[in-house]
């Protein structure tokens, strides 16, 4: 995606200073509480038709970001804008109207589908919520959606347990597609699937984006998958974005030491390739007591004295390439 055209458009989804602190009750009366800063001051935007990959290891807060944007949980602070309109301040009923533009695909295709509903009713649910149509119209629309995601019309009246994992995820995608949303939050949509099925579902998502032009916030931990589907990639560490850049730039020349280490861990399907893998020392620090300064300094091979005191801001180290590191740019 060209930077000039990006700057001209209104982002379809914009997030500023997004925070979510979970209170953990301590003591017998649960009075004193130490918040877990699951998401701590996130900012990014997604252009129409763009896919932003959000990567990070388990527990870094990436799934919380998805739930915050969908308003399934309430943010502690920050702004969320959908197509230029703030949705974080909307009441429940006003938010409901905006949900047309914002849909979701979850990780577990088994738990994402009510086991007691037929496939046709599952996909028709969002349609029935927003478009009062006749039964025949809705069924025709659902059959059309089935075709779009590669399911057959004769599978309409089946129950979820009669589908395979990949087919179930296609069903989930059909449901997300039903209202023709502007943004689909994909929360680890393929990590529960077999590798061969992963590729099919990823390619289906790409094809659908070409056809309908929606944007994806693609949350994942698999860097190869993210590289395949994303236009831009954001890397999260302990509730903060440490680097965000165009996919090619980020994979070719990572600016943040954490991104560098992550990318060195991606297996290369070439036995002759010499991998110089960066092994990080220690574990991810507890999000209840994150280290002061740069969150990553406890494990960073290049850490200096000031990394332990100053929190680095996300700065533009190259055009369109942002990193939160004192040592770059």
């Amino acid at each position, binding site marked *: 995606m060209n930077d000039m055209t990006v700057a001209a458009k209104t982002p379809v989804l914009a997030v500023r200073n997004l925070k979510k602190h979970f209170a953990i009750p301590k003591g017998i009366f649960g009075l004193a509480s130490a918040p877990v800063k699951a998401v701590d001051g996130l900012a990014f935007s997604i252009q129409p038709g763009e896919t932003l990959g959000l990567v990070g290891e388990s527990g870094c807060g990436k799934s919380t970001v998805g*739930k915050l944007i969908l308003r399934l949980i309430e943010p502690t602070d920050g702004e969320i804008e959908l197509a230029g309109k703030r949705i974080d301040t909307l009441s429940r009923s006003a938010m409901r109207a905006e949900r047309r533009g914002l849909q979701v695909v979850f*990780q577990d295709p088994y738990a*994402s589908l009510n086991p007691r509903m037929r496939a046709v009713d599952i996909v028709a649910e969002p349609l029935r919520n927003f478009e009062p149509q006749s039964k025949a119209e809705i069924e025709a629309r659902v059959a059309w959606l089935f075709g779009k995601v590669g399911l057959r019309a004769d599978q309409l009246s089946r129950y979820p347990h009669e589908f395979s994992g990949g087919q179930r995820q296609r069903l989930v995608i059909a449901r997300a597609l039903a*209202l023709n949303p502007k943004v689909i939050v994909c929360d680890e949509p393929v990590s529960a699937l077999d590798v061969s099925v992963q590729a099919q579902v990823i390619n289906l998502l790409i094809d659908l984006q070409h056809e309908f032009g929606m944007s994806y916030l693609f949350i994942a931990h698999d860097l190869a998958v993210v590289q395949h589907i994303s236009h831009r990639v954001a890397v999260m560490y302990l509730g903060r974005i440490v680097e965000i850049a165009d996919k090619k730039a980020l994979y070719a020349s990572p600016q943040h030491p954490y991104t560098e280490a992550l990318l060195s861990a991606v297996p290369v399907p070439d036995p002759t390739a010499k991998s110089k893998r960066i092994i990080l020392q220690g574990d991810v620090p507890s999000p209840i007591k994150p280290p002061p300064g740069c969150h990553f300094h406890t494990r960073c091979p290049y850490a200096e004295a000031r990394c332990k005191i100053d929190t680095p801001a996300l700065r533009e180290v190259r055009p369109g390439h942002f990193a939160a590191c004192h040592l770059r740019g």
Partner: protein
Amino acid sequence: MNAMPPPSDMRRSIFEPPAAVYPPRKPRGPALRFVLNHPNVVIGATLLVLLVAIAIFAPLLTPVDPTAIAPAKRNRPPSAEYWFGTDQVGRDLYARVLYGTRISLLVGFSVAIIASVIGLAIGLFSGFLRFADAIVMRIMDGLMSIPPILLAIAMMAFSGASVRNVIVAIAVAEVPRVARLVRGVVLTLREQPYVDAAIASGTRTPMIIWRHILPNTMAPMTVQATYICASAMIVEAILSFIGAGTPPTIPSWGNIMAEGRAIWEVKPYIVLIPAVFLSVTVLAVNLLGDGLRDILDPRGAKGH
């Protein structure tokens, strides 16, 4: 085998073992397969159907009025005329036990339905409205801290002996158990991704409860209802036995046992016969409940 078999046959023989080792299975009809897979349900349901038939057709099974007193024929042992004998005032025990089935089943089924419906409502309310949860569940905990029989006795002392009051008293004691179960299920279900997906699809809360929560509480509820039914029958018999339940004018198994208690050592069958009926009824209901639990568990046969 005389000659070398052609290569194609050799290959086939690897995949098709000789018939003698694996005799062809007899095709089984779906009905027979159900009986073999779920013997608990079949035995429990059969016994229960039999007992319901006894309760409904009691007047056809005996022409004798179960409350008719015949002082001249007191304390008769079981005979061709009096199958189960007679009691201290000459009432026909066979007729009394048959009519007693009505009370046990009426109390059992009514309590199961009433406690389930009220408990379901409280559980849904408590599971969905977090601010109400703490208060409602503490009340339920308070009710549960009183042994159900004592609670029922206390309520009977306030209200006086009648079958309706017995049902109400036992139902009140059972409601907290259902409420707790439903609340637990609701708390699990509302964390399910399909509920989140429904919220994200714009489904309103009442519809989410109706479409996504309620159907998935039905299986544990049904199983719990059978246990409540069984427990209610026992509590009814206990209440009647100690004279705090069904009024003595109505024959119930508890009443019959209470009246036979005084002459237990000489005429044990007066206590034993209604006791056997009670045990079999409770067993039938519990068997049905156990079997239903296995059938309704989606992780069971379907295996997804």
